[in-house]
C-alpha cells in the first residue's frame, strides 16, 4: 500500500516534471531564438551591405555623369575613398569637432552632473526631465531651435555686433553636436556620481579637504569608469551627429580658405563635411560606394565605442 502510493506519487511527479521541463525548454528556445534572430538581423543589416562597396556590374555609366564624378571615380572598391583628400578632411573634421565638443561637454557637464547628483537643487526633477528629454528630441527640431536662437532675437544682435556667424561655420558644428552629446554625457556622469557614496566626501572634508579637493581626490577617481563612459558616449554621439548639422550648418565644401579663422585653417577643418553628412552627400553625388564606405567607418566607430563602453563597465541613466 505504502509502496504503491509512493510509486504513484513519484509517477505523477515525474509526469509533471517532464511536462514542465518540455515547457521550459520550449520557452527558453523561443526566447533564445528571438534574441539570436535579432543579433543576426543586426549583422545582416550591416554586413550584407558589404556588397555595396563593390562597383556594380550592371550600373549604367554615362560620360556626362562621370564627368561630374571625375575627381571621385567609383570604379573600384569603396569608390577608392581612401585616395581622396575629401575623405580624410572629413575624418579630420569629425575627429577634431567631436573632441572639442566632448571637451566642452565635459567642462560643462561634469560639474552640472555632480551638482544634480549631490546638491538639493529646487526643481531638480524638472531639470532632470528636461535634460533627459534632449535624448529623444529629433535632431531636425534641435537644428531649427538653434537657427532661431542664433539668427533671431538678442543673441543674434550681440553676436552680429562681434562679427560672429555661428551657422554655416565650424564652431556651428560644435554647437550642434554639443546639444546631444552633452545630454548623453550627462546621463553617464550622473550615474557615475550617484554611484559614489557621499560619505567618502564627508570623510575627506572632515579631514580638512575643501569641496573641490575632495571632489578631485576622492570622487573623481572613484567615478573614473563612469566619467570615461560619459566621455565615450558624448564623443560617439558628437561624431554621429547628422540631422542637426544638416539643418544648422548646411554643408560647406569648396570654400575659399580666406573666410576661415587661422585656427580652423591650421587644423584643415574647412573644405569638409562631418563624416555622417559626407556619407549622405556622396550618395547624393552618385558615389554610392563611397557613401557606404563612410557608413562602414561610422559603424566601426560606434562598434568600437560600444565595445570599450562594456569593457570599462560604464553605466548611464537613460532617464
Amino acid at each position: 500500500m505504502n509502496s504503491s502510493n509512493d510509486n504513484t506519487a513519484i509517477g505523477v511527479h515525474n509526469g509533471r516534471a517532464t511536462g514542465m521541463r518540455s515547457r521550459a525548454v520550449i520557452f527558453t528556445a523561443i526566447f533564445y531564438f528571438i534574441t539570436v534572430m535579432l543579433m543576426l538581423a543586426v549583422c545582416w543589416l550591416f554586413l550584407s551591405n558589404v556588397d555595396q562597396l563593390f562597383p556594380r556590374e550592371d550600373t549604367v555609366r554615362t560620360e556626362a555623369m562621370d564627368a561630374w564624378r571625375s575627381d571621385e571615380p567609383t570604379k573600384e572598391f569603396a569608390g577608392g575613398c581612401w585616395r581622396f583628400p575629401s575623405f580624410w578632411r572629413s575624418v579630420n573634421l569629425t575627429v577634431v569637432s567631436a573632441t572639442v565638443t566632448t571637451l566642452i561637454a565635459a567642462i560643462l557637464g561634469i560639474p552640472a552632473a555632480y551638482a544634480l547628483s549631490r546638491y538639493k537643487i529646487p526643481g531638480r526633477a524638472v531639470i532632470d526631465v528636461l535634460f533627459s528629454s534632449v535624448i529623444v528630441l529629433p535632431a531636425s527640431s534641435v537644428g531649427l531651435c538653434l537657427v532661431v536662437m542664433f539668427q533671431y532675437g538678442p543673441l543674434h544682435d550681440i553676436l552680429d555686433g562681434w562679427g560672429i556667424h555661428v551657422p554655416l561655420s565650424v564652431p556651428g558644428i560644435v554647437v550642434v553636436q554639443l546639444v546631444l552629446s552633452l545630454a548623453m554625457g550627462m546621463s553617464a556622469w550622473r550615474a557615475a556620481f550617484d554611484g559614489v557614496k557621499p560619505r567618502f566626501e564627508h570623510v575627506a572634508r572632515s579631514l580638512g579637504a575643501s569641496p573641490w579637493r575632495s571632489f578631485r581626490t576622492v570622487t573623481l577617481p572613484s567615478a573614473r569608469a563612469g566619467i570615461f563612459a560619459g566621455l565615450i558616449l558624448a564623443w560617439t554621439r558628437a561624431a554621429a551627429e547628422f540631422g542637426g548639422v544638416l539643418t544648422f550648418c548646411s554643408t560647406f565644401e569648396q570654400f575659399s580658405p580666406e573666410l576661415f579663422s587661422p585656427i580652423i585653417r591650421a587644423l584643415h577643418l574647412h573644405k569638409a563635411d562631418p563624416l555622417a553628412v559626407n556619407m549622405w552627400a556622396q550618395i547624393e553625388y552618385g558615389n554610392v560606394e563611397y557613401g557606404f564606405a563612410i557608413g562602414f567607418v561610422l559603424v566601426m566607430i560606434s562598434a568600437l565605442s560600444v565595445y570599450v563602453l562594456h569593457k570599462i563597465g560604464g553605466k548611464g541613466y537613460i532617464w
Partner: protein
Amino acid sequence: MIEIRNLGITLGEFHLHDVNLTVHDGEYMVLLGETGVGKTVVIECIVGIYRQNHGSILVDGQDVTALYIEERNMGYVPQDYALFPNLTVYNNIAYGLATRKMPRDAIAAKVEPMMDLLNVSHLRSRLPLNLSGGEMQRTALGRALVTEPRILLLDEPLSALDENTRSELSAELRRIHDAVGGTFLQVCHNFEEASDVADRIAILNAGTVVQTGTIDEILSEPASPFVARFTRTRNILDARAEACSGGCVLALGGEHTLDCSREATGPVTVAIRPEKISILPAGAAISENNCLSGHIVRTRLKPNHAEITIETDRGPTLIAYTPRSAVDGTLTEGSSVCARIAPGDIRVFHKDAT
C-alpha cells in the same frame, strides 16, 4: 570640551530634540541607543554633514554651527569606514595632512608612528579593497587620528565585525585612546560593547538623551525602566508599594513582599538585576528576609555564568545569574529554592515612567 546644547533636528519622519551632551577632554564617551534612534545623526551633526535646526554645538565654548565640515577639525570614522578606494593605506592615512599642504617628510614623520601605533605598517601600499575588517578599521582610525582632531567620532565602528574580532578591537580602541590621549565619542547599540571601552555612557532614547554617567552609575541607578532594560536588567516587574520607615514594602503578587530601601507608594515598576539575586536552599525563606520561594524551571549555562529561571509560588518569574561554579545538584530544574534580594538592590520607578 565638546558641548551639545539643546540640539534638535528634523529629517523627514525623524526627530531629535533637546539633545544635551558634554564630552570632556581626554574622555572616551559612548553614545548608546537602539537602532534607528538617531545616534548617527548626532554624530553627523557634530561632523557638520547636517546642520541642526536649533541648539548649538560648542567646542571649547565656541559655537561651530556655522563652520563647514572641513573647518571643524573633527575626526570622523563612519560605519563602513569609507576608506578612499583609489588610495593606498599610507595615502589614506596621509590624506588629511596632504590637504593641509604639509611637506612630504613632515607627513611621513606623522604617518609612520601612527601606522606603527595601529599595526598597519605592513599594509602601507595595499588598496582598501582587499583589507580585512579590522585592518580597514585601524586604517580609518589612523586616517582620522593623524590630523589630531579635536574629537574623534566613531560611528558604530564594531558593528560590522564578528564577535571575536569585536572584543579584540574594542580592547584595541581603548588602547589607542589611552595611547594618544584624545577625546573619543563613539556610537553603538550594544551595551556590552560600550562597557568594554567607555569612560562614560550617554543613553539616547525617543530622540533625546535620557541618562549620562559612568557604567557603574548607570548600572546601579538607571534613570528609567528603559535604561534598566537596555542595560540588561532582566527582571522588570509590576508591583504595589506601600511606604514604611526607611523605604517601602513592595507587593509582588501572590503572598510575596519585598522590603526596599527606596521610597515609593502606589503602583510601581520594579527593576532587579539578575546578578543581584542570590539563590538559597528552599528552607532559607524562613530565616532570611526579602526572600521569595519558588522552584527552578530552567537552568542554562552561559560562558561566564549560569542563568537560572525561578518561578516563584503564584508570583512573578525571576531570572538570576550565579557563577558557574555554584551550579550543582541543588540547582537542577524542578528543585525548590529561595531567591534573596537585598533591599538596596531594588530599583523602583513610578508606573507612568518609561
